[in-house]
């Protein structure tokens, strides 16, 4: 069939449902939990139960952090399809997460059982572990006070002692670190062995030796709690090491990093959802003020605000298509590391440009807490930082395009 970049027909219902949930459940409590930082959004429990119900019935098709395990599920009912044209779980995920983040990014990140740790478990765990951690809400602990983007450099250690690993170290920026049932912790088996020795461990809440030190006060996504967690001789069963315990230098960092390959389009979708919220409202506010874009007339012959709106819409649509491309490639089992980084880089910076420009376009209305525009401009910033900053994405893209190693292009 021909090239078609319109939204897949197949997911119209799913996306419509996500939009309704975002509008009717997330938006009404969006400001409330922005102001009440660290308070648990109890309304989410019901929503999470609903999402669980949907995924059990198979209707949700990856509405949350579905992980990156590439299953062979066919397009039931669609009949035979040509190679390279499957629209599956990855597309469904980015599209529905975009809608949820159109509602509220912080609340989406706080959704029980939809944490990044769940994504890691879904990506790296073996079948036995998958079964054991089913239904567990898992946060993700990677960053340390001295280690951000250079996650190969982490200092938290895991030492095998009998049937248990003993964890020691400090982790920061753990999303839902205080609320989740368990934390997936990155630690090194042997600092001397470099990247290959970094493994992830599931640490259930309440394990002796793990304690939440403090919760951060943040610029945005304040509904989502962000914890500092200390591990002091924290012992977990050795079966809680996700994936293989072998230190394989050839495999390198790939095992642990596999999680990121498919979370990048998801973070891109968050940025796009948040920016779309800002743009939708701004478009309406500008229309009420008498400014509407005429798509046939040249931008320079229209009001500056209309020209700006056109530019924002163009950049946002470009970012969104890059996101859809990356997800579509994953659905069709094409390697998409380059495209995933392109999507996150573009979506991250466009997200900031759109939300900040919308505040400026709407003036005091945009800046005041009476509207959500100022909140979206604060929320969007993190999406150009976590899961690989703008600069890390550019580094990945540059290395790929130029064919340079990480030693050549540092």
């Amino acid at each position, binding site marked *: 069939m021909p*090239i*078609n970049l319109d939204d897949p027909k197949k997911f119209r219902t799913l996306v419509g449902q996500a939009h309704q949930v975002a509008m009717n459940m997330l938006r009404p409590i969006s400001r409330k939990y922005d102001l009440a930082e660290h308070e648990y959004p109890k309304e989410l429990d019901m929503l999470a139960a609903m999402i669980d119900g949907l995924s059990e019935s198979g209707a949700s098709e990856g509405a949350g952090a579905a992980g990156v395990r590439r299953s062979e599920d066919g397009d039931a009912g669609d009949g035979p399809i040509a190679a390279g044209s499957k629209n599956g779980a990855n597309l469904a995920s980015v599209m529905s997460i975009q809608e949820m983040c159109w509602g509220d990014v912080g609340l989406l990140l706080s959704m029980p059982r939809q944490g990044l740790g769940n994504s890691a478990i879904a990506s790296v765990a073996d079948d036995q572990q998958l079964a054991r951690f089913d239904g567990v809400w898992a946060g993700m602990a990677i960053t340390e006070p001295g280690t951000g983007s250079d996650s190969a450099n982490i200092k938290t250690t895991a030492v095998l002692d009998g049937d248990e690993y003993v964890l020691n170290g400090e982790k920061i920026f753990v999303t839902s670190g205080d609320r989740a049932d368990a934390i997936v912790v990155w630690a090194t088996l042997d600092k001397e062995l470099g990247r290959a020795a970094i493994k992830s461990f599931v640490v259930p809440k309440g394990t002796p030796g793990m304690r939440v030190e403090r919760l951060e006060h943040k610029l945005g996504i304040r509904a989502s709690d962000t914890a500092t967690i200390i591990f002091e001789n924290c012992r977990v069963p050795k079966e809680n090491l996700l994936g293989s315990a072998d230190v394989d230098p050839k495999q390198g960092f790939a095992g642990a990093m596999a999680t990121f390959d498919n979370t990048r389009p998801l973070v891109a979708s968050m940025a796009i959802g948040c920016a779309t919220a800002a743009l939708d409202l701004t478009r309406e506010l500008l229309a009420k003020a008498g400014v509407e874009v005429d*798509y046939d007339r040249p931008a320079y012959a229209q009001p500056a605000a209309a020209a700006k709106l056109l530019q924002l819409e163009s950049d946002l649509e*470009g970012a969104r298509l890059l996101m859809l491309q990356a997800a579509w490639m994953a659905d069709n089992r094409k390697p998409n590391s380059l495209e995933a980084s392109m999507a996150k880089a573009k979506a991250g910076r466009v997200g900031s440009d759109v939300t900040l420009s919308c505040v400026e376009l709407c003036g005091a209305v945009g800046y005041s807490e009476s509207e959500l525009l100022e909140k979206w401009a604060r929320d969007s910033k993190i999406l150009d930082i976590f899961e690989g900053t703008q600069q890390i994405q550019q580094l990945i893209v540059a290395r790929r395009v130029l064919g340079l190693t990480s030693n050549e292009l540092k």
Partner: protein
Amino acid sequence: MSMLSNLRPGGRHGVASTETRDPIGYLVAGLSRLAQTDLLDRLGLRKQAEQAVFTVTRSGFGTVTRANRTFFRAGSRDKSGVRPAAASTSGRFDLTPTEDEQLLVDVVTEFATEVVRPAASDADAACAAPQELLDASREIGLPILGLPESLGGVAEERSAMAGTLVAEALARGDMGLAVATLAPGSVATAIGLWGSDEQQQTYLPAFTGDDVAAAALALTEPQVLFDVMAPQTTAVRTGEGYVLTGVKSLVPRGAEAELFVVGALLEGTPVLFLVESSSEGLSVEGDPAMGVRAAGLTKLRLDGVSVGEEAVLGSTDGSAYAACVRLSRLAWCALAVGTGQAVLDYVTPYVKEREAFGEPVAHRQSVAFMVANIAIELQAMRLLTYKAAGRAAAGKDFSKAVALARKACAEHGMRIGLDGVQLLGGHGFVKEHPVERWYRDLRAVGLMEGAVLV
């Protein structure tokens, strides 16, 4: 007094009329005048410097000198022409071209690599496409690409996507030559889309045969803040037809064109008119520009040109005109994507080979990130363009989609041209490398209307 008024600074040489000259300024201006006369040369005061200055005839408008073809009227005026069917869609998100499209892209890519690119530099300097190249483009079927089979073309259905892919592939060779080769087909496609039975029968044989007519889609006008939806060229209804008056600019291959599609305002609504180059009152002048020079750009003057009732192409309610503008912008987006790809293809090996401070410049983030951003924005431009093209081919509304694509291609495309030169440093500024040409060409994307369409 006349001396003083001649020396008034504003309005010429790019000087704004608000500028004033002080006494020193008058003195310098006088010296400058003297320096421009041949007095110094006759007195042997200046070294003769050989300068190869190129211009198309810039000595004012001239009538079209090319032997004009006679178009024999045929077909029925009141009967609607044959229309290509809208492409069918599955509703599935898909970036895979059809087998036919891929085949076409492969052929055109080879042509662009083997024939177009090597000819680009000379064609840019000459402001003309070599005849052999134009002949070759006819042989691979470019003029009839957008025409349905029933009209002598190759398309089974609406081929905006194929046209987009072809324009992109051609521009990867050279934008100027791409415009030169696509211009006749653009007029043919327009007649296929909006022509009456009579217009199709009369004009299309000139594009489907061996001796393909040069033809051009003339929408742009030489005005600041030009709005293509409100052209200043006017059409006035008379008893037997219409009288067209106005000036069009940046018209490709206007000097040799035998048929023009001209946009004009008829009773407040923009309308397309078919104007044969033999028409009384029509004249052309060379209009070389910053870039896209190989397309042989011209100004077209319509000085009370009378055309018959049958000259109106498509509807008079503005809808055919608006569709034409959008499809033309889509073509320019595709050209921007192809040219942007040429830049990326060129700078990638260059920054890896060029060394500074003992290692390839590509090993520096400030250089590597520039390349990364070219790749990112280029792919976004491409997807935006394909989305608009897919919608156009499927017969869906694509006015917003093409506006978003055009914005990205104008802005980020220009950035790619700019960074392409920057990445080569001083070498990017000289004509030994093609990046300066791409820089000039990419500026056209946000301001060109008409000339090509898909």
